[in-house]
């Protein structure tokens, strides 16, 4: 019988192994999925009991904090946002019943103090309760105020300001905004506002035709691939015929044979349209992709709240790739079905500003635990190198011309060299604009100071009658001044 007893024992070992297997599955391997189940209240209820960490601006002012309510086992923490609407974007909100959005969502783990498993066991041994860590962001309160103020005066739109050398996001403003404190009693109402869409962060989810700002990308592709040099000239007549349609300059002006500087300074459409054709789709798309087009931006916000920039098929809402048929000359001047977010355009400016090295844009700067010591610090990371240092310098020179004597003179800051590019894309029939004449998407993107850039900014205004230089360039100037003066 002994042999059978041993076999029976082996069988019971197998049974118990199955138990260990299932327990591992639920507690570790499938834990993430189970925690996300809508029937599972635990994660929410537990988070409510954790003092969620504060979110601070770069200067230490409090953007979000938690206060406690109730006592004993019924004690829970509720979020409060002292700065109200100012940082509704990109900070978002966090309420147990209403969920989370934006920065509050993407940094939930740190804010709730969800440490590694080893950290947790250490805390248990010392009897420490889970406590959220606070996050200091790169956000600049004053510059954000300036951006919001300017946008409120100009109309719906967004501003993104990035420090080129680190990728630190100093401003991310989107108008109309909302007060996160109002979410518990106004969420459904805010969701119903289909035109103003205050809950939409236009900086990351507003997709607009980039217009002439995109010429910087086309120029970058031309210089980087060697198709042109700063000295090479292209004949730029008043209009060219592209794919059977006329592509014209403003006032059909014939610029004759000109080089990059003149073409960019005056935003000459026929010059860039022809450059696009010379480049071919492969080369142009390669540079675009290096600048971040075609992928979700590498920023610390929830992926589901980000949109990729690129050429879209309007019907399927899918991104087209380098092999899909597109009207290349029109893509080259930022029209066709090309759509870009203000964040993407700010990334283009930041990449050029940083000598061709595009840093990953990040809102957070450091995580500070309850004891006040820094547990994590942002280490700037290169996202890509879309152009060489030489190309970046050549582009900068051309972009300086735009502000000095070209289409973007309103961006000029006294005593500071500014490099930039305007954009004014016509968006006929844009329903969001509610009809009427105001159907331009006005842009300005650039950086300052041009020789050692401290800040790269994209400003975009929806549904305006005005041009980029009139409405977007002044926003750029004000925000850039606010940041440069603040240093």
């Amino acid at each position, binding site marked *: 019988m*002994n042999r059978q007893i041993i076999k029976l024992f082996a069988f019971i070992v197998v049974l118990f192994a199955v138990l260990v297997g299932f327990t591992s599955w*639920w*507690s570790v391997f499938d834990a993430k999925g189970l925690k996300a189940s809508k*029937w599972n209240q635990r994660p929410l209820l537990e988070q409510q009991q954790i003092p969620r960490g504060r979110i601070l601006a770069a200067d230490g002012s409090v953007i979000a904090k938690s206060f406690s309510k109730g006592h004993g086992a019924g004690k829970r923490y509720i979020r409060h946002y002292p700065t109200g609407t100012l940082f509704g974007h990109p900070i978002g909100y966090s309420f147990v019943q209403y969920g989370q959005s934006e920065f509050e969502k993407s940094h939930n783990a740190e804010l709730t103090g969800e440490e590694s498993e080893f950290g947790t066991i250490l805390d248990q041994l010392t009897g420490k309760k889970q406590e959220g860590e606070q996050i200091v962001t790169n956000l600049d309160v004053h510059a954000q105020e300036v951006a919001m103020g300017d946008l409120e005066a100009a109309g719906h739109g967004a501003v993104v300001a990035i420090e080129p050398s680190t990728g630190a996001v100093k401003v991310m403003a989107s108008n109309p905004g909302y007060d996160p404190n109002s979410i518990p009693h106004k969420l459904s109402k805010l969701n119903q506002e289909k035109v103003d869409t205050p809950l939409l962060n236009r900086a990351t989810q507003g997709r607009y035709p980039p217009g002439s700002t995109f010429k910087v990308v086309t120029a970058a592709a031309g210089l980087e691939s060697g198709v042109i040099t700063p000295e090479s000239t292209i004949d730029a007549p008043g209009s060219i015929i592209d794919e059977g349609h006329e592509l014209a300059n403003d006032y059909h002006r014939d610029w004759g044979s000109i080089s990059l500087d003149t073409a960019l300074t005056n935003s000459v459409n026929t010059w860039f349209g022809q450059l696009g054709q010379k480049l071919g789709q492969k080369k142009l798309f390669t540079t675009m992709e290096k600048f971040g087009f075609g992928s979700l931006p590498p920023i610390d916000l929830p992926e589901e709240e980000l949109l990729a920039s690129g050429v879209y098929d309007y019907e399927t809402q899918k991104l087209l790739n380098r092999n899909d048929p597109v009207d290349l000359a029109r893509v080259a001047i930022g029209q066709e079905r090309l759509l870009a977010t203000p964040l993407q355009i700010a990334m283009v400016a930041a990449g050029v500003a940083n000598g061709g090295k595009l840093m990953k844009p990040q809102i957070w700067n450091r995580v500070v635990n309850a004891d006040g010591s820094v547990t994590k610090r942002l280490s700037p990371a290169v996202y890509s190198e879309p152009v060489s240092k030489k190309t970046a310098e050549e582009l900068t020179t051309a972009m300086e011309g735009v502000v000095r004597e070209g289409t973007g003179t309103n961006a000029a800051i006294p005593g500071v060299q500014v490099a930039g590019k305007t954009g004014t894309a016509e968006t006929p029939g844009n329903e969001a604009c509610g009809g009427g004449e105001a159907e331009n998407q006005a842009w300005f993107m650039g950086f300052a100071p041009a020789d050692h850039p401290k800040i790269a900014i994209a400003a975009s205004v929806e549904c305006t009658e005005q041009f980029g230089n009139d409405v977007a360039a002044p926003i750029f100037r004000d925000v850039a001044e606010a940041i440069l003066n603040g240093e």
Partner: protein
Amino acid sequence: MTRARNRELLALIPVALLLTAGFAAVFAQDHAKLGNLSLTYGAYFFAVCLATHVYLRIRLPHADPYLFPLMALLTAFGLVMIYRIDESLARDQANWFVFGLVLFALTIQFLRDYEVLERYRYIIATAGILLLLAPRIPGIGEQVNGAYLGVKIGPISFQPSEFAKIAIVIFLASYLRENREVLIVGARRILGVTLPPIKHFGPMLVVWGASMLLLVFIRDLGTSLMFFAAFLALLYVATGRFSFVVIGMILFLLGAWFIVATVPHVHDRVEIWLHPYNEPQENGYQILQSIFAQADGGLFGKGFGQALITVPGTHDTMLPAAQTDTIYSLIVNELGLFGACGLIATYLLITARGFKIALLAGDGFSKLLATGLTAVFAIQAFVIIGGVTRVIPLTGVTLPFVSYGGSSIVANFVLLALLLLISNRARREAEQGVTHSRGDEPLGAAA
């Protein structure tokens, strides 16, 4: 032999320390301060264990030294978990623990010659069946969640199936000891399958019928599975015929399938098991919450006293039956996968020790009894842990020594007493090199 007992004493010390540490952790959690109450509790627990140990030293000096500390470990574990849920429940459980030890001592005292059990096997079997059916007797029967597992006489309520399992195992061990030979020799091959002789097919069918009846009457798949699995385990060990097990399993599955299809309550249980998300707020609530609680545990768990059992600020249950059915989920939640593995490892060690006793035992009845008791213990742990981890449908079986419940702890201490009795004799004989008169290895035993 005192060396074994010294080892037992040595093993009890870490158990007492663990209990003290566990209580300390729960106190720290609850009151944010550390009194010396946890030390007091630890000392009480150690004193009770020590008394038992001294008793074992006198009565069963040769018995397995690890079984009692291992079971004390489980009890300590259970006490801490239950204390963490509800202080008054833990006090009850501690009382049951002491009562269980008294019964443990009485069993050892009066059943030293445990083979007398063989003489009363039919009475024991009848008592076992009656115990199982008692919950269906109007007036004393109790229905919990649609299953009939409890009996309430006056102020005392208990789960008779806990005691019935011991009775049934005693009967099966005795019956199979006597008939194993005929079962093997009389077996014949039909169509390539070895079948037991027709004459003895009858009793097997009776056991099968009984477990099916159980399923219908008490409507608890887990209990029924536990009994039938113990039967198959014993049948296999007694005859060495794997084909018997296969036939038995097919019979059980067919019967269970038929009953699942026809008895609504049992059908619901299986439906919930297969599709818990169909009614996540109603029938599926318990199993889903059980799994959600485990998901929260991760590798190391949230720590003693950290799990949410009710919705904060209310009395709404988050983990139904946390002190009984789903205590394992609570353990995973608070102690994580590692804690759960530790628990399962403890059950496995007990099983290993139990089978070791069976291997050492000289006579057939001892062997089969030790095997049966160990198997039913292990299978019970499997049925309830498997239930809350969705390996099998969730049923109302207790987690031995850990779950809250007097019947469970008392019955399992009786089971432990029997195992130690067998062990004491087996090890003494092994040491003294006794060639036993009742030996039946190889085949050929007749009482």
